[in-house]
């Protein structure tokens, strides 16, 4: 097979990006392209699925197959795609509103399902596309258009939540460090199971608190902690709690069979390759005997 480059992805992008200059989603998208190319994945074998939000527009800016679906439902759509064709690499790319607000239930259930998807969340603690409303990860007390007096709720804690829910892969990247982010995406793609990668991705237009500088200065990089063991779930929860979510790197990973492998009956070959679906007559006659 010919070598795959980032250009193979970029050449088929037809839609100009609407992201603001400096948006944290650019480096994350670039990291995904580099990781896919680096792993030799043909763009025809990759599907990026988005929900609704700035980051959810990523499928259009990526250059593979894509599905820009509706708010909060990207993960179920991706689940259907993966079960239909298990040879595909399916990546869900969305935001904190999409994934931790309207789509939170799908997120948690997909964690326990452990289907082989990559889930990248551009976590900027704000609703950007709709110009600045409070998000599920907005800090308590943050003033936004829908919290003019400061939010009264505590934020969702997605990393601890995923760890507690039994996630088999949890990582956090930062848009200010594309190199690490690319490596994390590669690991996420290679992980067999649900690989959850939260990305601290600044919204440069509507969030003046959670900035590149803030995250660069305040995040503990687990790559610099040689003692850290990413195969210890309790330790992973402890480190996330200890630093109030401000950690980056691989937080936790365990090997276990993915949903497709556990799902009784699912064909090893991609179902999507069966075009001729004609049903054997003798089988039908036999089935009817079960209802005699």
């Amino acid at each position, binding site marked *: 097979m010919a070598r795959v480059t980032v250009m193979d992805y970029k050449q088929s*992008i037809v839609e100009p990006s609407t992201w603001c200059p400096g948006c944290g989603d650019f480096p994350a998208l670039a990291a995904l392209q580099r990781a896919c190319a680096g792993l030799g994945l043909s763009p025809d074998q990759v599907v990026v699925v988005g929900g609704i939000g700035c980051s959810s527009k990523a499928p259009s800016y990526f250059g593979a197959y894509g599905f*820009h*679906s509706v708010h909060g439902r990207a993960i179920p759509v991706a689940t*259907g*795609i993966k079960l239909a*064709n298990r040879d595909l690499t399916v990546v869900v790319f969305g935001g904190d509103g999409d994934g931790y607000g309207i789509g939170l239930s799908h997120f948690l259930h997909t964690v326990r399902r452990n289907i082989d998807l990559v889930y990248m969340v551009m976590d900027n603690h704000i609703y950007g596309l709709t110009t600045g409303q409070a998000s599920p990860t907005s800090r308590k007390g943050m003033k936004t258009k829908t919290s003019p007096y400061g939010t009264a709720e505590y934020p969702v804690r997605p990393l601890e939540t995923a760890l507690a829910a039994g996630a088999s892969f949890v990582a956090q990247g930062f848009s200010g460090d594309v190199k690490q982010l690319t490596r994390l995406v590669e690991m996420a793609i290679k992980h067999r199971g649900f690989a959850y990668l939260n990305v601290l991705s600044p919204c440069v237009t509507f969030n003046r608190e959670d900035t590149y500088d803030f995250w660069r200065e305040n995040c503990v990089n687990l790559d610099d902690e040689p003692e850290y063991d990413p195969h210890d779930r309790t330790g992973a929860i402890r480190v996330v709690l200890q630093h109030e979510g401000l950690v980056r790197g691989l937080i936790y990973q365990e090997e276990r069979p993915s949903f497709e492998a556990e799902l009784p009956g699912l064909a090893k070959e991609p179902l*999507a390759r069966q075009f001729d679906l004609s049903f054997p007559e003798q089988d039908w006659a036999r089935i009817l005997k079960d209802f005699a």
Partner: protein
Amino acid sequence: MSVVTRVIDFTWKVGGQQGEGIDSTGEIFAQAMHRRGFYVYAYRHFMSRIKGGHTHYKIRVRSGPVWHRGDQDDLLVAFDQESIDYNLPQLRDGTAIVHDAAFVARVPEGRELELMPVPMTRLAEEQGRSIMKNMVAVGVSAAMLGLELADFETTIRDRFGDKGEQVVEANRKAFMAGYDYYKTHFTPRQVLADVVTDRPESAYLSGNDAIALGALVAGCRLLFAYPITPATEILYTAFKYFPRYGGAIVQGEDEMAAAFMAIGAGFAGVRAMTSTSGPGLSLMMESLGLAGIAEVPLVIVDVQRAGPSTGLPTKTEQGDLNTIVYGSHGESPRIVLAPSTVADCFHVMGRAFNLAEHYQCPVIVVSDLALGLSRQSVPVADLATGTWTWDRGLRVTDDELKDVTPGTFARYRLTESGISPRTVPGQPNGRFTSLSNEHSEISVEEESPENRVRQMHKRMKKLHGLDLSDWALEHHGPERADLLLVGYGSSYGPIAEVWRKLADEGARVGRLHLKALWPLPEAGLARYLEASRHVLVVESNYSGQVANLIKLRLGFKDRIRSCLKFDGNPFTANEIYRMAKEVV
């Protein structure tokens, strides 16, 4: 096969408290009667709870085809007084109530009903377990009706064989305890004795069974659903067969997940579906919009129950049609199919998947509780494949994509028919991003008024001219009629019986069963309406949703009247008959 010695049309009912094994009593009796060569229709009346509350299981046994539970009861087996009180109105005078002697049964003065006390609980306890009173009841019924243990042997074995020979033997003994007690104390009525029927080889299954099997044969390989009465049985049947063909069933976290998973699978080129009932359908409304604008095949089965909200969750209704036809936001094409019989449930699924892939839009198959849950004898010949031929829609081949520059594939190309050939992920050079936003031909977000109008026309015109009259209208009787009875779904049986009765009385009456509700099969429907002096639309809801749809699309306001029922129970033939007599 031998001849019918006499015409049989007999209804048997067993009633008691939920959780007492009433269902298994009914199921054993029904299955055995089916195997005995009768046509059987089994109707389950139950509540949304595990224990307590009146429940009954009614079985109509006929020597000829049956699509309806019947208006009256010819024999009631009652485990408590409530079962007698509740079912008195349906009990035909001159018949009998067999009741557990554990209580003193009462019937109102003036009713000619013979009370036959049998110590069913005590006899069961003598065999070891009081729950076997159900098998005692079957034995009692058998003795009364002139049946033998041999008629029940295979059914008992199939049902209890897994639990070991001891359990089988205990149940046979319980059967015989009831059988012997009856023979010692009462005179057999021999209603079903020595009957030889000429019923062709038949299967015994429900509408829900048939939908699962129809989907399997139609090539559906992924079923995503959230449990909900009365649609869950579709999952149970699918679980038995899908895995044998590489398929899988996924229980979603909710109905939204289920519908969107099905959209994902449809987008990726696999026949996928979801099954639900009204409340779940409400949650799926946003998925209809997405499948509509992204032009993804999607099949949804709605087994209707009585709403609104939780309503009567274990009772039948046909109240979802407005939602099914008009629900969701914005406007997008959809197709609504409506099986009337168990055989229809099987055949409709192939058509549903064909239409979904051909027109790249949602297809909703609308059933109802009475059709979905009632198991019936269906001639195997009526379940033969070949009523439809395969149509997987317009798909671009890998060969055709060879020289395509990546990124230029026009997924939403404007075509004469509005249908654009599609690729699926994995196909080289065919890539595109499906959008929930309005989009251009190459699927780029595009909001110009010109593009919007072009794409709206493209999507909506896909169904222009789609008229399923050639198969979606089942008509019987003279085309020129004084009265045309119209219905869909489970009203098929009672309508058929009323039609027969009116015809026997000399009326010029026709009946028409609608098997597609959207787009309405207007060409054929208009012809029948035109030729009928009066039209009575029979449907299980308050507002006459089908009648309104017909009036809206075709007019005929002056001749259309409604026969409505929304108390949770299926129509009786007599209810329709009375209304028909008022009309003509």
